[in-house]
């Protein structure tokens, strides 16, 4: 009997070892190839798919374009793999873990397109040494590169967005001081994304004396009757909309139902794409939203895209959707990643680069007007130039208005007020550093 038990144990142990070996072996082995691997966290299913799909298409198409038109980044072919997050934080983290080690040098950089996932992977990036690029979303305080060494909120944060919106409505009132006694309602997605702008709006409220109404909308945002009832009762002078996915179009429809003038509604740049307004039909006319990085339309790069990718049948989405707001934003996001690799290649040589090396590229990014023109993005973005301490590189945006058929520009460029935002960033970043026991990087030593 004892003998039998032992045999059984041995057999089980052997079986278990074999199984485990099979599991580890099934992870595909990559040969050292001249390839740069871009992980793509996308969401093509779920409540946020209408916005996730065009962004992912633009992102992936641009990577395809670089391969087809330029033969890769200075001869280094781009490879990529998509992973579906469904905008859920846990699946996003799983995707991050799945993709971070792929390719000959690991993941180049991550662009999760979700503030929730950004918060979760921010903790992991320093250990894995992979940059997290969050163009126009993510943590506002991660602008501070000395504490958030691996986060890059390139082009703008939610604090900039909120600041610019206050500046704009202040201008409409004939000066920010006239905002005194006015009411501004923030209708926001009840998640880190929607809550991000609150500190800045509160700070500005203290300065100018307007009243801030905070109206959260729970995920996914199809039920907003209670929110809009409050708006009907309180009659705010302006409504700022901080929604995503189906929440945006629902808000606009509710505004129509409540009779709230769309002209007084201002969306953040994630509430200003075609899928947000078209479901509301004519009702959306007059609705405003911020534009940052990429408005709708087509430029030189889109001609290249159609010629090199779509005419060969390689396009990810439909040909007609090339040039939509979110498609363009996906393209610009991918472009900045590619440019960071190009920049880093100058320092580290034309070979597949590690995440760490790409970080140097991101910290020394200098996409000026000339470079934008050369890349074919003229009119689609403002110049971006970063440094070790400033991980943002640009803080300007303008406004656009929906005329029932298309978005058209309705204001000049605004620059967010660094005087107000900088102290907020500093305080918030320092609190984070204290919580996580992080010591500040010394940028002077590293360059």
């Amino acid at each position, binding site marked *: 009997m004892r003998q039998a038990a032992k045999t*059984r144990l041995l057999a089980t*142990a052997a079986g*278990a070892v074999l199984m485990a070996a099979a599991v580890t072996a099934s*992870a595909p082995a990559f040969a050292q190839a001249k390839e740069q691997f871009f992980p793509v966290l996308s969401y093509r*299913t779920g409540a946020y798919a209408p916005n996730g799909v065009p962004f992912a298409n633009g992102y992936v198409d641009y990577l395809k374009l670089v391969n087809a038109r330029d033969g890769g980044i200075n001869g280094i072919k781009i490879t990529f793999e998509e992973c579906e997050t469904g905008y859920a934080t846990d699946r996003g983290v799983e995707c991050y873990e799945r993709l971070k080690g792929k390719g000959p040098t690991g993941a180049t950089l991550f662009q999760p397109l979700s503030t929730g996932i950004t918060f979760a992977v921010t903790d992991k990036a320093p250990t894995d040494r992979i940059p997290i690029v969050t163009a126009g979303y993510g943590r*506002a305080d991660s602008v501070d590169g000395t504490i958030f060494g691996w986060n890059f909120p390139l082009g703008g944060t939610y604090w900039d967005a909120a600041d610019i919106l206050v500046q704009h409505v202040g201008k409409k009132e004939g000066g920010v001081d006239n905002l005194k006694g006015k009411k501004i309602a923030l209708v926001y997605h009840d998640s880190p994304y929607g809550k991000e702008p*609150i500190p800045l709006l509160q700070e500005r409220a203290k300065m100018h004396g307007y009243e801030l109404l905070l109206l959260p909308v729970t995920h996914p945002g199809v039920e907003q009757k209670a929110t809009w009832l409050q708006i009907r009762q309180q009659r705010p002078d302006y409504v700022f909309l901080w929604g995503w996915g189906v929440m945006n179009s629902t808000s606009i429809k509710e505004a129509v139902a409540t009779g709230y003038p769309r002209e007084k509604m201002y969306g953040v740049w994630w509430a200003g794409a075609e899928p947000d307004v078209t479901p509301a039909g004519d009702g959306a006319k007059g609705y405003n939203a911020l534009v940052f990085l990429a408005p709708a339309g087509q430029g030189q790069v889109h001609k290249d895209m159609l010629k090199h990718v779509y005419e060969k049948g390689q396009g990810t989405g439909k040909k007609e959707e090339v040039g939509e707001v979110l498609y363009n934003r996906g393209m610009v996001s991918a472009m900045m990643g590619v440019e960071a690799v190009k920049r880093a290649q100058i320092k580290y040589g034309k070979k597949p680069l590690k995440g760490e090396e790409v970080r140097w590229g991101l910290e020394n990014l200098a996409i000026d007007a000339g470079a934008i023109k050369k890349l074919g993005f003229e009119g689609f973005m403002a110049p971006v130039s970063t440094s070790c301490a400033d991980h943002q590189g640009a803080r300007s945006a303008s406004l656009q208005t929906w005329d029932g058929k298309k978005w058209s520009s309705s204001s000049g460029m605004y620059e967010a007020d660094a005087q107000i935002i900088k102290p907020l960033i500093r305080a918030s970043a320092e609190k984070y550093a204290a919580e*996580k026991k992080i010591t500040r990087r010394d940028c002077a030593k590293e360059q």
Partner: protein
Amino acid sequence: MFYRENGQYKTSYAADQQMLPILQDRVFLAGVVVFAFVAVPFLVSDYLFLSLLIPFLILALAAIGLNLLVGYCGQISIGHAAFMAVGAYAAYNLALRIPQLNFLVVLVLAGLIAAAVGMLFGIPSLRIKGLYLAVATLAAQFFMDWLFARVKWFTNYASSGSVSTAPVEMFGWKIDTPTEKYVFLLAVLIVFTLVAKNLVRSHIGRAWMAMRDMDVAAEVIGIRPVYAKLSAFAVSSFYVGVAGALWGFMHLGSWEPLAFNLTLSLNLLFMIIIGGMGSLLGSYFGAAFIVVLPILLNQIPAMLGIPLSTAMVSHLEIMIFGALIVFFLIVEPHGLARLWAIGKEKLRLWPFPH
């Protein structure tokens, strides 16, 4: 042939009452534990640790906690993610505000706070039963979601409502690599499983089961419902609270109130239904099923080299996962643990089934 207890005579009460009366079971389990502690850390990649094994271990702990209440005491709760949230936020605040506390102390205190809250929300169970109680526990879910999203103190006034934890360190041991986390969680899970196993074999567990099987009869034979039901709520919430703290500190690192929403509550309930109600082993099976299967299904097309679009793969994942749940519930409504028990019965008769 190999799996028989012939000749294993019990000569003392202790031998008769041990947890695993059959030698083969003991050897097998010891083998599994040794394998999990010694071999797995060397065999498994970081990805498997972080995406599969660590969530599996923590959710298995939570499932055990819920199983004590639902499976053993018969009180249905669909608000258990709320108690996980209590544990997680309690641990976060304890670690933040009293940094010199040892992490183990933080864990236990977080569990105790969750237990207190669990008892509070367990009070309605004294008056209402079954599905009505389930609806009442839903209140816990919505209340906690609201509390942690609205009361800023709990999130240390974080502007986005998202909190992030400091790295875990105790006795000079910094638990930060996936392997270390895995070993630590495995040890915690084993200790808690042993405690749970002994609890359900003791008079407390018998009181719970009596309450589950027929509360009037249990009262008649002298079991106090207040004591039995509230102790089940307390122990269950303690387990789930500890699991919540571990989920926050070891798995997520930073989280928002949404991380402990109704979906997680329902997932916990599905775990014990699919795994097997009133079975600790079932909690493990259920957790494995819910955690591992979707991720595995998502990767199968790529492993087989079938080119499918990302959207298609995730639609397929949801469809196949749903179909498998239905399949297993039809094949064995008592859960995977029952399938395992049937397998063991068959093995004892093999190769001469009658």
